[in-house]
């Protein structure tokens, strides 16, 4: 397991909203230790028995908080992430989709300078199977096991986790890093953590077209990784210049092409799965 476990104390920002309230219920049902919520102007209320505060600072005065998950609308989301970082929350998970990119450029820089780890935005969050879920994924498809997952996609991650679980391999921690061009944490930031984690025996990297995060991850793997890694890249048939759902999934000129990503992984000795079933097959082979 990396980053989070059953003892992680979680704050929910935007807890009184539709999404925030719904997923607070889901996370509580999974066993996540949610200690407080924040919605400016709604301090003093309760959501599913969780006390609501007006600011992150007010919440952290009353509770110890290890991580915050953010369901605040796009126009205020980067500000919410900065609020959590400035209040000293060490791990911030930004779920919100559609945040203006320039807001993220400024926020990511400042949050990094504060020494806080930001995951997202536009991400499904993270889950340590059987321990805690700080995200919006369907918890039941993640069975505790041997494989770590890092992914730019949501649904595809659930597919991969379900397939690994069905095959008896299971997952340790799964991190959805998000589909936006500017995100807080990339593949290469998380690979070292999985490399150190005694429980994780192999890592699945689910990438997609756009940017060069996969290439950077491949370079890191080649130089440092001591565990088997299996890669998957979606959008391999996508046309150039078209944004495929995710703001970050766009091929610009020669940057972000699937060919470049495939080549980088091949050079790092990382096998590439063409289908979800092949992910399981390749991980199975690596761990046999």
């Amino acid at each position: 397991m990396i980053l989070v476990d059953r003892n992680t104390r979680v704050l929910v920002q935007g807890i009184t909203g539709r999404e925030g309230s719904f997923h607070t219920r889901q996370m509580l049902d999974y066993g996540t230790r949610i200690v407080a919520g924040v919605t400016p102007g709604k301090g003093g209320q309760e959501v599913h028995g969780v006390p609501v505060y007006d600011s992150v600072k007010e919440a952290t005065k009353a509770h110890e908080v290890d991580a915050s998950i953010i369901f605040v609308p796009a126009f205020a989301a980067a500000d919410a992430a900065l609020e959590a970082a400035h209040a000293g929350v060490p791990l911030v998970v930004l779920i919100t989709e559609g945040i203006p990119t320039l807001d993220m450029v400024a926020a990511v820089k400042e949050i990094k300078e504060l020494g806080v780890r930001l995951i997202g935005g536009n991400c499904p969050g993270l889950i340590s199977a059987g321990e805690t879920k700080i995200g919006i994924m369907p918890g039941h498809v993640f069975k505790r096991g041997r494989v770590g997952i890092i992914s730019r996609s949501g649904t595809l991650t659930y597919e991969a986790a379900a397939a690994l679980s069905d095959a008896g391999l299971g997952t340790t921690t799964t991190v959805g890093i998000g589909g936006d061009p500017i995100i807080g944490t990339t593949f290469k930031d998380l690979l070292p953590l999985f490399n150190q984690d005694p429980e994780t025996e192999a890592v699945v990297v689910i990438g997609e077209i756009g940017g060069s995060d996969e290439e950077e991850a491949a370079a890191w793997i080649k130089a440092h990784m001591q565990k088997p890694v299996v890669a998957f890249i979606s959008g391999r048939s996508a046309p150039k210049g078209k944004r495929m759902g995710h703001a970050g999934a766009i091929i610009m000129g020669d940057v972000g092409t699937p060919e470049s990503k495939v080549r980088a992984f091949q050079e790092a000795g990382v096998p590439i799965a063409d289908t979800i079933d092949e992910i399981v097959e390749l991980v199975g082979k690596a761990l046999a």
Partner: protein
Amino acid sequence: MKLHEYQAKEILAKYGIPVPPGKVAYTPEEAKKIATEIGKTVVIKAQVHVGGRGKAGGVKLARDPNEAYEVAKRILGMNIKGLTVKKVLVAEAADIAKEYYAGLIQDRASQRVVMMVSKEGGVDIEEVAREKPEAIVKYPIDPHTGLRPFEARQIVIDAGLEGNLNKLADVLVKLYRAYAGVDAFLAEINPLVVTAEGQVIAVDAKIDLDDNGLFRHPDLAELREVEAEHPLEIEALKYGFAYVKLDGNIGVLGNGAGLVMYTLDLVNRVGGKPANFLDIGGGAKADVVENALKLIAKDPDVEGIFINIFGGITRADEVAKGVIRVLEAGVLKVPVVMRVAGTAEEEARKLLEGKPVYMYPTSIEAARAIVAMVEGKK
């Protein structure tokens, strides 16, 4: 969202960057009138959302108002890469001494907006990047300070631009202000011209806006041009779907951008061609699925539909209900294959029992089946 050259130049002018005097004309008469007002040689430029206008004959000089009329008449109505030219920019032709390049892009690797400046202006910058990468100076900008004059001056010096240092640097500073001010995704001045008299002007400009920032700029959001995009993409926008029109014949619908991209890949892998990308998003209810499927059914290119659902927050039975509504409405004239897994998978299967939908247990089997059905028809 793409802006036209004249719209981009209006933004640059608002931020204090000199642009050649000019106006937009929708008719040859208007072009003549504008050329008369300018009273000098003008350049007439097709305003369409594609590159390579010059090569396609959409950019021409006119020495007097009568010639402006004739040139505008030829360019208006012209078809450039599938788009009809409906308006032209009539602008004063610059007396060019030097042509440079200045642009701003989002760089994911450095997580910054990066300014790129080159002496090699007036040509395709991607070509310069390939052939002579050393001719481009790249400078990541601190989002908290913006681009300051001393930094801009150093960029001008490092790029080896010749001309008035302060004027050139001033354009760079203002270009970043404009970029940040309108929440741009890309902003380019190409060429950035130094005239024979030593003036620095933006002779051509391109701005693409960040769709995520548009809510802050309702005036710019209004500039979205219906005719420049596929009509189904415009309709999808109304429903809030992520939809991209592609050039094949198999309609694809799924939940989650990654899953839909993967589904397109599978269809391609087994020899088919997708007609579209459509992500219904997370937690979609029956009515969302209904609208999405009806949208795909409207596409005359579609000869078969592949629905790929992995239930998580989205319930598979909600998807099934939406599919059934569309089936009952009788608007589907093509075969539909479906693969459902995850949350409420069993309920979905029960609902769809006996309905004219082909169900497959895996994505790859469903992909093979729909490709075979569509091919078999031919």
